[in-house]
């Protein structure tokens, strides 16, 4: 592992992404956001495959990569693209050795290092296989080994668990967490999974519609989601506080009580609406209640409650939540 420095980037790709990003060496920045939010664009800019735009710049460890421009091959970036893109005509070992050979290491030394890297990722036995003969999980490990073999200062992982079986993804997640913890450069991990973002990331960057919607520590983002996407990602209801403009109200769906009659007790937040959707969720049922807010209020209730209240789409109900179960915070970081 080489010792890189902190990352400082400003991206202004017109029509695609406008974002600032700062991260220290050792940081794992989890990049989350809906499809088309600009996650891959961000990685491509950092790798040097896309121009950062008119006002953009990228620097790592105090050295600028954009002024003067540094080619991708001179950036020391380990980039695991979505779908791995292992060279199909090379064996796993040759794939991992490719970057070492390209950077001038001798054949034997590159081969030895490649074998060690494959071993480290738990795929040492598959060095002679072509990518077509590897399972999805094995191929992903080879791709990570290939990226790590060149001692990158910046590691970019684009959806490393996408398309893997649940069990395979889980074991890769555990191992990747270990490698990321011992990695002393800056790492960016693009994911659409809240668990990945919150467990693997030391920082979370939420992109939406080509902008940074939220950034912070995993704990902060999980507790105070600022957009609907993050709220759904971490499983919280987030509503604009009716009594305080500019502030958000967050509460867990399991804290919501549904009733047919208007609930009594003035300390409760309550909304009248109609049942929109019922979906199985864990042991119970997640009920979406359409209210006057732009997003439905989610409530987790037991199957028994569904039967008792005879819940069905279209039924008028009251959703209420105790004041003690609600968190209130400003809608913007500096608000």
């Amino acid at each position: 592992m080489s010792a890189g420095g902190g990352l400082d980037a400003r991206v202004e790709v017109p029509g695609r992404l406008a974002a600032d990003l700062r991260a220290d060496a050792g940081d794992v920045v989890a990049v989350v956001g809906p499809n088309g939010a600009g996650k891959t664009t961000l990685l491509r800019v950092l790798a040097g495959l896309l121009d950062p735009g008119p006002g953009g710049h990228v620097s790592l460890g105090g050295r600028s990569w954009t002024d003067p421009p540094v080619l991708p091959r001179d950036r020391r970036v380990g980039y695991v693209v979505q779908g791995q893109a292992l060279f199909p005509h090379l064996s796993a070992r040759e794939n991992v050795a490719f970057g070492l050979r390209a950077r001038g290491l001798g054949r034997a030394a590159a081969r030895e290092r490649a074998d060690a890297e494959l071993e480290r990722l738990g795929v040492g036995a598959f060095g002679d296989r072509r990518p077509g003969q590897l399972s999805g999980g094995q191929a992903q490990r080879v791709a990570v080994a290939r990226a790590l073999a060149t001692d990158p200062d910046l590691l970019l992982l684009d959806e490393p668990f996408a398309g893997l079986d649940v069990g395979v993804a889980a074991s890769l997640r555990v191992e990747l967490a270990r490698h990321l913890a011992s990695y002393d450069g800056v790492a960016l991990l693009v994911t659409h999974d809240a668990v990945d973002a919150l467990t693997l990331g030391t920082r979370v960057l939420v992109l939406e519609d080509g902008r940074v919607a939220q950034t912070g520590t995993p704990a902060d983002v999980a507790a105070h989601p600022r957009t609907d996407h993050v709220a759904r990602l971490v499983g919280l209801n987030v509503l604009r506080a009716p009594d305080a403009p500019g502030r958000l109200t967050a509460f867990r769906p399991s804290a919501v009580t549904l009733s047919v009659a208007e609930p009594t007790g003035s300390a409760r937040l309550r909304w009248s609406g109609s049942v929109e959707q019922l979906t199985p969720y864990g042991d119970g049922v997640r009920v979406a209640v359409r209210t006057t807010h732009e997003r439905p209020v989610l409530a987790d209730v037991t199957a028994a409650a569904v039967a008792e209240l005879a819940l069905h789409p279209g039924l008028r109900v009251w959703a209420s939540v105790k004041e003690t179960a609600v968190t209130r915070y400003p809608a913007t970081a500096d608000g």
Partner: protein
Amino acid sequence: MTGRTTSTLGRPPAVLVVPAALASVFLVLPLVALVLATPWSTFLDNLTSPEVLDALRITALTSGLTVVTCLVLGTPLAWVLARVDFRGRGLLRALVTVPLVLPPVVAGVALVSALGRSGLVGEPLRDATGITLPFTMTAVVIAHTFVAMPFYVISVEGALRTAGEQYDEVASCLGATRWTTFRRVTLPLALPGVVAGSVLAWARSLGEFGATVTFAGNYPGATQTMPSRIYTVLVNDPEGARTLSMILLLSSVLVLAALRNRWLTTGASA
């Protein structure tokens, strides 16, 4: 005709079936006639006459050199067209594919205009070095390359585009220069297209006649290829002409078989 088509959609109408049958006969009959007319008993004797051996040798040599020239010059051109973004790329692609549809004899006239004794490049070349290209075996290779290279370039460019730029980007992030990337990633992945393009160029070169006789002439032992020899001896030595024709027909069938396996079926997914 599958059973389904006949049984569920009704009988194929005669107005289509009759012309289709005529077309089939039209295309197959001359080939059958050639096979029947080939003097099989004297096939080997005809084949070993000095003039025929010369034509065979010249054709093998020039078509081989044509393929090599296409590989050396056409591969980089295909790469530039597929991978380098520059003004006028579309125009260049259109221009280099013109020989594909140009009448071969016009190609020959164009080559004479460029490389002939008093041609645009030919005259200064002769003045400077004393070298004249027309009516040499080099001229045969030039004529063949001129008409065959577009086939090669189109085939390889298609393969390069199919392989996509993603692997080039990955190689670049791994620290490879563009030349290393080309050598170790791009070209190996485009190999099916290179093979198919070479076979196409070879086949085109094998049968080339118009541009060759116009630019390189028809001199036995120097520039007379098999098609030129066939044309020359058809009246006086029909047996020899048919023997050579049979060889070219067999070559064509081999090319078709090679392309079916390599290109028409698996090429798209390779």
